[in-house]
């Protein structure tokens, strides 16, 4: 996978950092939550226990109160009446009436009087808010605890009825046992089977399986319908006969809000920490990758410009980067040296090509070099610089290269050429072009080589192009070529003087030559130079140094 160094540095510094931070925060949060939970749990348990104790207290109060009911003299008299007249319906009715009156006043749901043998004598029951007498035959309710009759559970309490310290019977008082009387979720079970439950959002089956895990434990924490509950067996309410009453408290509902606050705080804190970690990682990755990126940037620039500058090594304070820079500099030096050598070799090659050509004809010896010089002079006077000037220089040097392909008979003929011979000679720009076409890096010189005999009025050769359709460099070389040709001796004529040649150039401006170039070429600056140069035949090595 390709990746920036900065990105890589960032990822490698940030990711472990982030993982560590996130993990740390998660751990701390879990610890805090569990601590809070433990605290909550114990306080919940305390509240639970104290609530249970309060219930126990109130049960005790209640039982004291109920004891007084058992001391009712009318009831005693009624019981005695029933005992003394066991067959009398009216006697039982009397007792039932008394019980009803007690139930009316004290709002009991069940009242039952038994004799000293625990045989029920009379009983009344509240059904649909109405007190009815019940058929007590076969009733065997417990002295204390839960008693189920007609699908309704009653919580029973029994008190002895004594006359003269002699027990004559028992009064049992029952109140409807309903889970709605409990403020917390409560579950009534018997031998592990849930009979009643008012746990919100949970079916009795769920509650049963959850509480099954608690087994015989008095205090237990369990999960019902995804919520954590603390359960406690209530010992305030004696139910007997295997009935167990468990009260539950939702731990989540108590610690939930606190946990959500904690989560919020930790989320914000970890977010900020991650943000700062990201910032730090970014900075550190920048500080590591920055110098390299700068180096890369500069390499890219030098790739674009083709220049190989020396990089400053002092700027990089990092040891490795400095070494890298120095290595690069050394490599760049080597490349530069190689390139210079190549350039040198290339120039020498062109120079030798030109010399080869010149050597074939004594009369044209040094012609290429002079044309090159003159062309440069004119070009410089026309404010042509840089690459373009180089093109002019090289192009001019090579402009007659096509003459290599012209047979010696024509080229070195000491007399005027015939028509056919002239036609052969005029092929030399095209030949030159063909020669150089195949050479890589010589493309720029082709227009000079091919078109340096085109005239301004389109009468030149080989393509007969007029005025500006011929590139500027070719037009310059055309003028310089003509000047040198005129000022050089030929087998069939002697050399023209400088002044005559200038005159001739001026005369042909607009027809043969570009008038603008002629104006420049015949301007004082260039003319002086030309004049001076025609006097001295420059040796080859010097020319090379000029080109260079």
């Amino acid at each position, binding site marked *: 996978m390709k990746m920036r160094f900065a990105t890589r540095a960032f990822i490698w510094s940030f990711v472990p950092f982030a993982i560590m931070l996130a993990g740390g925060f998660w751990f701390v949060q879990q610890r805090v939550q569990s601590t809070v939970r433990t605290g909550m749990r114990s306080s919940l348990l305390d509240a639970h226990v104290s609530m249970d104790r309060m219930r126990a207290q109130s049960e005790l109060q209640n039982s004291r109160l109920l004891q007084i009911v058992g001391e009712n003299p009318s009831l005693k*008299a009624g019981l005695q009446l029933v005992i003394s007249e066991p067959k009398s319906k*009216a006697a039982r*009715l009397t007792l039932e009436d008394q019980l009803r009156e007690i139930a009316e006043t004290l709002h009991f749901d069940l009242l039952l009087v038994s004799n000293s043998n625990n045989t029920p004598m009379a009983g009344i029951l509240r059904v649909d808010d109405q*007190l*009815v007498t019940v058929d007590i035959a076969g009733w065997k309710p417990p002295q204390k605890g839960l008693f189920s009759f007609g699908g309704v559970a009653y919580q029973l309490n029994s008190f002895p009825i004594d006359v003269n310290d002699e027990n004559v019977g028992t009064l049992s008082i029952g109140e409807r046992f309903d889970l709605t009387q409990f403020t917390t979720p409560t579950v009534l079970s018997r031998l592990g089977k849930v009979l009643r439950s008012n746990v919100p959002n949970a079916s009795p089956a769920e509650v049963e399986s959850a509480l099954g895990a608690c087994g015989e434990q008095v205090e237990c924490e369990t999960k019902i319908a995804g919520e954590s509950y603390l359960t406690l067996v209530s010992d305030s309410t004696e139910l007997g006969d295997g009935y167990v009453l468990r009260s539950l408290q939702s731990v989540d509902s108590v610690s939930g809000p606190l946990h959500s606050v904690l989560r919020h705080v930790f989320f914000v804190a970890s977010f900020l920490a991650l943000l700062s970690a990201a910032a730090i990682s970014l900075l550190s990755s920048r500080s590591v990758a920055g110098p390299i990126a700068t180096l890369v940037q500069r390499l890219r620039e030098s790739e674009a410009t083709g220049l190989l500058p020396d990089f400053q090594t002092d700027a990089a304070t990092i040891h490795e980067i400095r070494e890298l820079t120095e290595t690069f500099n050394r490599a760049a030096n080597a490349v530069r040296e190689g390139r210079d050598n190549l350039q040198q070799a290339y120039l020498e090659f062109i120079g030798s090509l030109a010399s080869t050509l010149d050597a074939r004809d004594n009369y044209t010896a040094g012609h290429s070099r002079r044309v090159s010089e003159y062309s440069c002079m004119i070009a410089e006077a026309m404010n042509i610089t840089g690459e373009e000037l180089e093109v002019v220089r090289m192009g001019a040097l090579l402009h007659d290269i096509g003459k290599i392909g012209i047979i010696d008979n024509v080229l070195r003929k000491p007399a005027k050429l015939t028509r056919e011979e002239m036609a052969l000679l005029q092929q030399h720009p095209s030949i030159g072009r063909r020669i150089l076409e195949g050479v890589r890096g010589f493309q720029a010189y082709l227009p000079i080589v091919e078109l340096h005999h085109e005239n301004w009025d389109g009468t030149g050769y080989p393509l007969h192009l007029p005025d500006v359709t011929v590139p500027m460099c070719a037009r310059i070389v055309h003028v310089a070529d003509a000047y040198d040709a005129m000022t050089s001796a030929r087998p069939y004529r002697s050399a023209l003087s400088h002044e005559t040649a200038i005159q001739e150039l001026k005369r042909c401006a607009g027809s043969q030559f570009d008038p603008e170039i002629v104006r420049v070429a015949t301007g004082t600056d260039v003319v002086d130079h030309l004049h001076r140069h025609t006097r001295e035949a420059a040796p080859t090595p010097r020319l090379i140094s000029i080109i260079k």
Partner: protein
Amino acid sequence: MLNRILRISLLILLSGISLRAADVQGTVVVQHKLTKSRVTPTASMYERGVSISLGSDQEHDPLAYERTHVVIYLEGDSANDEVSGELGQKDRRFSPDLVVVPMGSTVSFPNYDPIFHDVFSLSNAKSFDLGNYAQAHSRSITFPKPGIIFVNCHLHSNMSAVIVVTPNRWSTKADAAGHFTLPNVPPGKYTIVAWHKTAGFFRKTIQVTATGHDPIEFAIPLDEEGRVQQASR
């Protein structure tokens, strides 16, 4: 003692000339409700399976109730005035709850309820316990001495009645409006007594002539906190 013999002989004399006797009439004014009755059962109670719902006190005019529970009688003895009274038990209540009889009278206590009752009294004037007896049974008690007899039931502690045994036949209860009439009272000077269970005794001296007497009005007064004040006379 002499005074008493004189009074009795006077009464005998007066009874002989009853044509000259006058009706003693008067009014009882009760300023405040004296008895706090809580609730009364609204339905018949003893049907098996039917429960009792309790209603509020249906008494429209509580003062009228108080007035009907004021007993008026003349002090002084008289012989052979005995009558038969009845104090039944119905709907777990004594019915009526106030019986006025001259001394020597016999009161029967029939049980009209389907349940047992055990009527008794611990009052000084006459204490008795009739024991448990069921419906359609009755017991009787003769009251030889005048006095106030509070009657209760062993089986039903909230049952309560009063038997007022007066010294002679000139005794009555005020009506709802508070009016009372003691017929055929021979002329003479009497002490007329008004008694209410809560307010107690109120006495006035009246002079009865053949043509009548000064107007009699018993105001059963109360102080600002609702307590009964004793009559000034």
